[in-house]
């Protein structure tokens, strides 16, 4: 098979090129990586030292990790089809981080229970979201948005915005690295590999995609659509809780507004990563490309010393171009 395609390419270079393009087109995530790579190279123009180049990549991997963890959760939700989106991610992150850091009270022996609390809070938030959506039949956008007010208020009420430091060993882990990669990126990698396996290799993954492509057909075909929804919303909230836990450990404490930027970020990395916003079609690798890209683009424009207005405009324009490119190529095939 492989030999065959090699042979045709040698015989007919033109067909080879179109074949290569075909491979690209079937992988919409390639555009996110191309964009991230181009942005990285463009930033290197103003980075003078090779140490600088390395530390930029390291920083990008670190900060992209948080977007990746929440992005993977959001991707599953978006895959469920039009109208499915989780807007409670920022509030879930804040609540999980606030409660778990308050519980740990900087005591290193409490790290495992603290992590379990963060995951438990995610679980509870996910269950609540699902209950609003399924039992009360509220559209997901409104359900998750209103739930987020509740979660945020709980976070405010529980700790009044006080910033409690994570245990020293946990903070060291979150800010440190292993084998040249930031630990946060290892967590994100673990989450991504698991998500990829679920999506591509298990029946549950097929069910998620099937529900997103045509809910009615999926239900008639015997897919337990409600169970799928349940799993996806709860899973997304658990990942948000985990992201909140890691982020708070990384940045030295939970903030009431720590999740704010992950509302749009979680959706942006899904879309730029090449998953279909209409649902039914998703991919995990693209989220990595997109999350790196989202960090690098801000770094690039900052390094060029452009004003805030220009910076925001360019960010918007570039994101639109990447999304258009990715979706166009996808549709051609």
């Amino acid at each position, binding site marked *: 098979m492989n030999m065959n395609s090699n042979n045709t390419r040698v015989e007919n270079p033109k067909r080879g090129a179109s074949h290569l393009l075909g491979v690209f087109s079937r992988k919409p995530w390639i555009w996110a990586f191309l964009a991230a790579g181009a942005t990285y190279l463009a930033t290197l123009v103003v980075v003078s030292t090779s140490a*600088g180049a390395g530390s930029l990549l390291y*920083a990008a991997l670190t900060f992209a990790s948080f977007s990746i963890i929440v992005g993977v959760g959001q991707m599953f939700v978006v895959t469920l089809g039009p109208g499915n989106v989780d807007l409670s991610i920022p509030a879930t992150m804040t609540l999980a981080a606030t409660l778990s850091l308050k519980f740990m009270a900087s005591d290193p022996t409490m790290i495992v229970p603290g992590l379990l609390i963060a995951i438990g809070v995610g679980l509870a938030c996910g269950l609540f979201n699902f209950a609003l959506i399924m039992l009360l039949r509220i559209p997901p956008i409104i359900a998750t948005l209103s739930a987020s007010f509740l979660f945020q208020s709980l976070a405010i009420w529980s700790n009044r915005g006080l910033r409690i430091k994570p245990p020293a060993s946990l903070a060291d882990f979150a800010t440190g690295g292993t084998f040249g990669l930031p630990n946060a990126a290892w967590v994100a990698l673990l989450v991504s590999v698991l998500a990829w396996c679920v999506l591509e290799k298990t029946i549950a993954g097929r069910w998620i995609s099937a529900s997103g492509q045509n809910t009615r057909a999926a239900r008639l075909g015997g897919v337990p659509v409600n169970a799928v929804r349940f799993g996806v919303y709860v899973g997304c909230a658990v990942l948000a809780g985990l992201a909140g836990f890691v982020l708070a450990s990384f940045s030295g404490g939970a903030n009431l507004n720590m999740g704010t930027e992950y509302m749009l970020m979680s959706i942006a990395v899904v879309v730029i990563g090449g998953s279909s916003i209409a649902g039914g079609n998703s991919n995990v690798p693209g989220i990595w490309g997109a999350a790196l890209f989202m*960090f690098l683009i801000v770094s690039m424009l900052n390094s060029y010393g452009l004003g805030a207005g220009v910076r925001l405009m360019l960010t918007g324009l570039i994101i639109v171009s990447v999304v258009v490119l990715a979706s166009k190529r996808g549709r051609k095939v």
Partner: protein
Amino acid sequence: MNFKSMLLGAIAGTVVLVSGQAMADTSGKTIALSNNYAGNSWRQAMLESWGKVAYQAVQDGVVAGADAFTTSENQATEQAAQIQNMILQGYDAIVLNAASPTAINGAVKEACDAGIIVVSFDGIVTEPCAWRIAVDFKQMGRDQVKYLEQRYPDGGNLLEIRGLAGVFVDDEISAGIHEQVESTKFDIVGSVHGDWAQDVAQKAVAGILPSLPEVKAIVTQGGDGYGAAQAFEAAGRPTPTIIMGNRRDELQWWKEQKDANGYETTSLSIAPGVSTLGFWVAQQILDGKEVPKDLTVPFLRVDQDTLEEILAETPVGSVANVEYALEDAQKLIQSAK
């Protein structure tokens, strides 16, 4: 000059005397706090200070009531509706931190027309009938550079961490910084937006750091100093002089550095307790005092010498704070006349 100041002193003395007599006049009055946002530690401390001082004032019979209300979303329309409710509820004065300097002017005007005293602070309103206790944000920028100039007369490279793009406060502080830098040997070699949050600032600084030459000092807007320090540490670069914004974790970090290697810097911000200044100014107006429409909030500054003392008073995870007393408000009113 001397005669003038003596005269001023005499007036001040009389006013204080008169105020002492007229104190009971406000005992039947009610004051409401209209607050547009509660989602960060600064606002939480602000509400707490209000609660403490207002509760005491009610206990002492200075006023009959002083309730605090916060809108759930940071939106002008919602706050306008809230103010209209306050008018209907019959409060005598409204102290407000506004979502927008202009968008709730209509509601403020309605309140004034209904005979209600409106005092805006921090987030002020432009409606002429209201009082304003404004922060001189430009001065906040200038003061930072002035301090740095003292430390480094020969200048050097500065990194600027700004707040939230497009917000008035961010433009003002930054303008103050740039104005003052003009007359010094400093160069601003980079500028990022930290959205007044540690984690956002950390992320932005980590991103621009590889492209920067040696940085002598960082000018900030508050809430971003600790994040900047973390980013420098993660990149393994020498820590520059970072101007802090009175947050507990910033002060804590400064203290650790001071003990370890004699690190020196300064820290300035507005105390969240400025809400209590608003309370007392409103009380003074209700009391029939002549109060100028425009007042300026004093900065709360932490220096190398006062660091330990203020750090000890600041609750874990919060921000350095002072609650203002009636006398502070009277002094402020005097100084503005």
